C-alpha cells in the first residue's frame, strides 16, 4: 500500500470503529471492547508506519476534488510533513492507551458503548485535523472534536457540574470558533485556496497576504478557544467533571493540541504580522503564569493538572510566538506523553483514595503502597512536568526557552525581540511555579499522614500496564529525540543551551525546595485539622468512584476548586493571593458579569417583548371575534319554538326578497 492509502486509513479506522460501536453497542455487548480498542490500535500502528515511510523527508501531498464548489475549491487533501507524522503517532499512542485504560476504568458503566464510540470519533477527528491539507476539511475535524468533547465531558450527566461543564466547554470553544471561521474565509479569500501548501506559497510570495494582522488575530481567537489560552481558557478546569480518561485524551493529544498544531502549521501566516506575534506572546505569558499560580491553589487533583495543562499550552504558544514551531511541537509531543500519564495515574489515585481532594489525600497514610504503579509513574511524570533533567519535559521545555532566548538577541526577522523577552521571563517564572505545584501535588498525594488508606485490592491490570507504557516516553523521549527531531521539523537545533538549562533547572529546583520547606512547616497542622470525605461506594468501578468524588466536593468543602485546609503549603506560599488563585482569578465571575448576565437580561427582555408586546396584537385580534361570538350566543335560548320562529321569519324575508327581485320592483 502506498503511504497515501495508509494515511487515509489512519483517521478512517477509528471513524468506522465509532460508527460500528454506535450502531451495535446495545445489541452486541461482546464486541464493544474490541470495537473500541482495535481500530484505534490499528490507526496507531498505521500512523507509526506512515511516520516511518515519511521519515521526515519531503512532505506527502495528495488531493482529490470531489465536486466543484464555487470560487474557492474545497479538496480532500493530505499534507503529511514531519510535524503531522509525529503528532499523529502521539495521538494514536495516547488514544490507544486511553481506550485500553477505559476498559478497566469504566468497567461497570452502563453507557460504556457510546462512550467508547465517542472516544474513537474524537480520535478520528483529531487525526483528520493532523493529516488534513485543506483548511475546510480540517475545520470538519475541528468541529467534530468540539461536539465530542461536549458529549464526553458531560458523560456523568446525572450531576449538575458535568452538565454545566459540558455546556461551558462547548459554548466557550464556539465563541472562539466563530472568528476562526471568518478568519479562514478571509485567509482563503486572500490566498485564493483552502489548501495549506498553496496558502503558505501565497504568504511566501512577493505580494504576501493583503490583511495579515486581521486574519492572524481572527485565527488566534479560535486557537485560544480550542487550546484553552487566556482569555478563553475557563472551560478547561471545569471540563474535569468528565471521566479521567477523557481528560487525559483532551489534555494530552486531542482538542487542546489541535489549536497549537494548527498555529504551527500556518506559522508563516502569523509571522507575517508582528502584532499577531506580540499578541501571541502576551497571551502565552499571561496564560502560563496565571495558570501556574492557579494550579498551586487548587484542591481537586484533576484541576491542578488542568491548570498545569493550560500552563504547558502557554509554553507551546510561547514557542510559536518566537517563531520556533519545532520547539513547540517537540514540547507538544513530550507534554502529550507525560500529561496523559499524569491524568491516567490520577484516575488510579482517585479510585484508590476514594476522593479527588488533595486535602483529604494528605490525611491518608500509605496511599503510595496501595497504588505502587501509579506512585512510580506519577513521580516520573511530575519530574518531567517540572522539567528536571534527564526527563523528557526538560529537553522540550529547554528548547522553548532557548528559542525565546535566541529571539531576545534580535537576530531573527521572524519574531519581534519583545516577544522573546516576554516569553523568556514568563517561561522562567512559570518553570519555578510548575516545579512548586508539582512538588505540592506529589507531597500531598503520597506523603500524607493520618488514617490508613482504605484497601480496594489491586487496580485492574489494563489500567496499570498503560501507565508503564506511557512512563517510557515521559522518561526517555526528550533525551533520545532532541538530536533526531530537527531532521523531521524545520531543521532548527533543539539542543539545550547552557544558559537556559542552568537557569530553568535552577528555578525549578528552587521552586521544588521552597515548596518542600513550606510543606514541612505546614504538615504539622494536618493532624490538628480533620478534613476530608471519601466516596461512599469504594467497591464500584473507578468511574463511579470518581463521579461521586466530583459531585461531593462542593458540598463537602464548600467550593469545587478549593478546600479550607490550613495545612496546604500552597496557602502558605501564595499568601493573600491564594483565595483569588483558587477561583481562577475570578475570571468566571468577570465573564458572568460581562457576558452571562447581559445575555440573560437580553433573553428576559426578548421574552417580555414576545409575551407582552407581540402577543398583545395576537390576543387583540382574537378578542373582537370573541365578543361578537358572545353576543350571538345569547340568542341560543334552548327553546326550539323560538328557533323555528326565527327560521320562519328568515324564510319570509327571503321569499319577499325573491318575489321583489323576480318582479323587478
Amino acid at each position, binding site marked *: 500500500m502506498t503511504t497515501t492509502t495508509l494515511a487515509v486509513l489512519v483517521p478512517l479506522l477509528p471513524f468506522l470503529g465509532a460508527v460500528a460501536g454506535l450502531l451495535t453497542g446495545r445489541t452486541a455487548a461482546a464486541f464493544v471492547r474490541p470495537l473500541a480498542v482495535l481500530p484505534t490500535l490499528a490507526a496507531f500502528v498505521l500512523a507509526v508506519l506512515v511516520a516511518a515511510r515519511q521519515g521526515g523527508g519531503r512532505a506527502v501531498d495528495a488531493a482529490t476534488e470531489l465536486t466543484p464548489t464555487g470560487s474557492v475549491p474545497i479538496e480532500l487533501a493530505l499534507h503529511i510533513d514531519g510535524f503531522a507524522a509525529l503528532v499523529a503517532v502521539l495521538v494514536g499512542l495516547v488514544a490507544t492507551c486511553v481506550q485500553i485504560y477505559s476498559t478497566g476504568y469504566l468497567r461497570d458503566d452502563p453507557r460504556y458503548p457510546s462512550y467508547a464510540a465517542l472516544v474513537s470519533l474524537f480520535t478520528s477527528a483529531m487525526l483528520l485535523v493532523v493529516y488534513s491539507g485543506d483548511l475546510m476539511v480540517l475545520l470538519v475535524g475541528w468541529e467534530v472534536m468540539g461536539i465530542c468533547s461536549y458529549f464526553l465531558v458531560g458523560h456523568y450527566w446525572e450531576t449538575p457540574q458535568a452538565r454545566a461543564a459540558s455546556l461551558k466547554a462547548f459554548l466557550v470553544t464556539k465563541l472562539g470558533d466563530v472568528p476562526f471561521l471568518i478568519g479562514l474565509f478571509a485567509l482563503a479569500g486572500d490566498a485564493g485556496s483552502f489548501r495549506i501548501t498553496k496558502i503558505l506559497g501565497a504568504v511566501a510570495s512577493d505580494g504576501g497576504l493583503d490583511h495579515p494582522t486581521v486574519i492572524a488575530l481572527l485565527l488566534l481567537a479560535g486557537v485560544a478557544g480550542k487550546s484553552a489560552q487566556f482569555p478563553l481558557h475557563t472551560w478547561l478546569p471545569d471540563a474535569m467533571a468528565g471521566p479521567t480518561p477523557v481528560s487525559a485524551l483532551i489534555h494530552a493529544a486531542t482538542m487542546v493540541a489541535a489549536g497549537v498544531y494548527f498555529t504551527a502549521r500556518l506559522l508563516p501566516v502569523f509571522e507575517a504580522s508582528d502584532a499577531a506575534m506580540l499578541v501571541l506572546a502576551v497571551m502565552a505569558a499571561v496564560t502560563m503564569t496565571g495558570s501556574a499560580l492557579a494550579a498551586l491553589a487548587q484542591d481537586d487533583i484533576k484541576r491542578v493538572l488542568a491548570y498545569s495543562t493550560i500552563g504547558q499550552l502557554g509554553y507551546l504558544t510561547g514557542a510559536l510566538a518566537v517563531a520556533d514551531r519545532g520547539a513547540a511541537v517537540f514540547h507538544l509531543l513530550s507534554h502529550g506523553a507525560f500529561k496523559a500519564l499524569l491524568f491516567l495515574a490520577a484516575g488510579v489515585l482517585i479510585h484508590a483514595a476514594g476522593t479527588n481532594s488533595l486535602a483529604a489525600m494528605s490525611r491518608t497514610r500509605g496511599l503510595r503502597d496501595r497504588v505502587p504503579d501509579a506512585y512510580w509513574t506519577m513521580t516520573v511524570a511530575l519530574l518531567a512536568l517540572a522539567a528536571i533533567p534527564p526527563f523528557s519535559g526538560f529537553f522540550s521545555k529547554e528548547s522553548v526557552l532557548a528559542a525565546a532566548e535566541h529571539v531576545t538577541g534580535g537576530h531573527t526577522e521572524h519574531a519581534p525581540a519583545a516577544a522573546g523577552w516576554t516569553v523568556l521571563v514568563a517561561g522562567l517564572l512559570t518553570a519555578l511555579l510548575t516545579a512548586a505545584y508539582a512538588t505540592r501535588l506529589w507531597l500531598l498525594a503520597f506523603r500524607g499522614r493520618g488514617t490508613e488508606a482504605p484497601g480496594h485490592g489491586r487496580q485492574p491490570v489494563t489500567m496499570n500496564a498503560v501507565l508503564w507504557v506511557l512512563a517510557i516516553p515521559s522518561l526517555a523521549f526528550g533525551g533520545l529525540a532532541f538530536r533526531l527531531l530537527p531532521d523531521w521539523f524545520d531543521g532548527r537545533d533543539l539542543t539545550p543551551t547552557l544558559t537556559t538549562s542552568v537557569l530553568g533547572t535552577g528555578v525549578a529546583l528552587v521552586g521544588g525546595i521552597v515548596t518542600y520547606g513550606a510543606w514541612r512547616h505546614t504538615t504539622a497542622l494536618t493532624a490538628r485539622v480533620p478534613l476530608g470525605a471519601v466516596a461512599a461506594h469504594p467497591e464500584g468501578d473507578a468511574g463511579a468512584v470518581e463521579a461521586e468524588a466530583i459531585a461531593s466536593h462542593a458540598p463537602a468543602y464548600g467550593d469545587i476548586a478549593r478546600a479550607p485546609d490550613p495545612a496546604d503549603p500552597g496557602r502558605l506560599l501564595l499568601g493573600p493571593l491564594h483565595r483569588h488563585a483558587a477561583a481562577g482569578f475570578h475570571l468566571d465571575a468577570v465573564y458572568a458579569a460581562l457576558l452571562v448576565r447581559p445575555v440573560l437580561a437580553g433573553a428576559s427582555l426578548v421574552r417580555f417583548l414576545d409575551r407582552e408586546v407581540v402577543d398583545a396584537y395576537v390576543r387583540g385580534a382574537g378578542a373582537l371575534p370573541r365578543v361578537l361570538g358572545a353576543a350571538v350566543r345569547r340568542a*341560543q335560548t*334552548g327553546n*326550539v*319554538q323560538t328557533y*323555528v320562529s326565527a327560521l320562519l321569519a328568515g324564510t319570509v324575508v327571503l321569499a319577499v326578497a325573491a318575489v321583489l327581485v323576480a318582479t323587478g320592483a
Partner: protein
Amino acid sequence: MHLAYPAVLSALLFCTGLYGVLARRNAILVLMSVELMLNAVNLNLVAFDVWLSRTAEETLHSGQALTLFTIAIAAAEIGIGLAIVLAVHRNRGTADIDRLRDTAEGRDPDEPDPETSAPGTAAEKAEATA
C-alpha cells in the same frame, strides 16, 4: 273542480299546523301540528298533479307517487317522535317544550338537569325532532 279550492284548503291546513308548532307547549301537540303541515303539502302535491296531468299527453303521476312516499316517511317520523316524547316524559315527568332547554347558552351540557337527574341526550333528540 277548480284548483283554488284544494290550494286554499291546504294553505289553511298549513297555517294551522304552523300555528300549532310555534304556539303549542305540549310536545305531542307539536308533533300533531307537524302532521297537519305534512298533509297540507300532500294535498298540494295531489291537486297540482291532477291539474298538470290534464293538459299533458301522458304522465307518470309523480306528484301522487311522491305523496305516497311522504305518507310512509311521516308514519315513521311520528313513530320515532312519539317514542322519544314518551322516553322524555318517563325520564323527566314532563313533555313541556318550554322546560326542555338543555341546549341553552350558558349551561354545561355534561351537567345533569337540576330538576331531574336524567341524562340530557334523550331530551336533545326530542327537541331536534320537534
